[in-house]
């Protein structure tokens, strides 16, 4: 099971770009990389998912190098409402049993004015 390592916390200011890097040295061939966001008193919410290279959606970009041993979540022009815990997950399908979703400790992002 691929273990992930990410910074415990990060601070930023409104309008800046934030990059959170996650290490997953023993990622398996069929594992995807997924990021979730969690606000206090709420369940985690899916942000973005990728397998290799770059993925972009309306809220974030995900950069994955060729060796896939790390990934970087990029949040453009953050605002106060982006203050949350961000989790990097690595996992794949359990051969018909659904996806394995293993959370680490996450990165607490604090955005200030």
């Amino acid at each position, binding site marked *: 099971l691929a273990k992930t390592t990410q910074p415990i916390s990060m601070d930023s200011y409104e309008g800046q770009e934030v990059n959170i890097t996650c290490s997953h040295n023993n990622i398996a061939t069929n594992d995807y990389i997924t990021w979730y966001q969690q606000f206090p008193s*709420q369940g*985690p919410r*899916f942000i973005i*998912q990728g397998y290799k290279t770059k993925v972009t959606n309306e809220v974030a970009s995900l950069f994955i190098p060729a060796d896939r041993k790390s990934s970087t979540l990029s949040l453009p022009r953050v605002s106060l409402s982006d203050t949350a815990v961000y989790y990097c997950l690595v996992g*794949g399908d359990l051969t018909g049993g659904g996806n394995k979703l293993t*959370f680490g400790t996450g990165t607490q992002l604090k955005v200030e004015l």
Partner: protein
Amino acid sequence: EAGVAQSPRYKIIEKRQSVAFWCNPISGHATLYWYQQILGQGPKLLIQFQNNGVVDDSQLPKDRFSAERLKGVDSTLKIQPAKLEDSAVYLCASSPPAGRRLNTEAFFGQGTRLTVV
């Protein structure tokens, strides 16, 4: 589209009492997860169902925790008897069948906050 529904939202019980949580996943979602999230930590998987079968319950304390998913839809998680260290938020999540993709998004409920005193 309705989200994952959980009840109750809050529960306070005394140690050694029993408690049950209920989860109604998104319609059509085959995979259902129960997580335990202790304050300041990431969610920890307790049990994973695929339809009404258990896929992974390796981290479920089976001497006191039990879960079922009758008819592959709703699910209940029970703790009997509760201990002080069971104080946490219990999250339910569901995800659709993978289909042609290898991986899919999971949708989480708001959770049940359990306090054991």
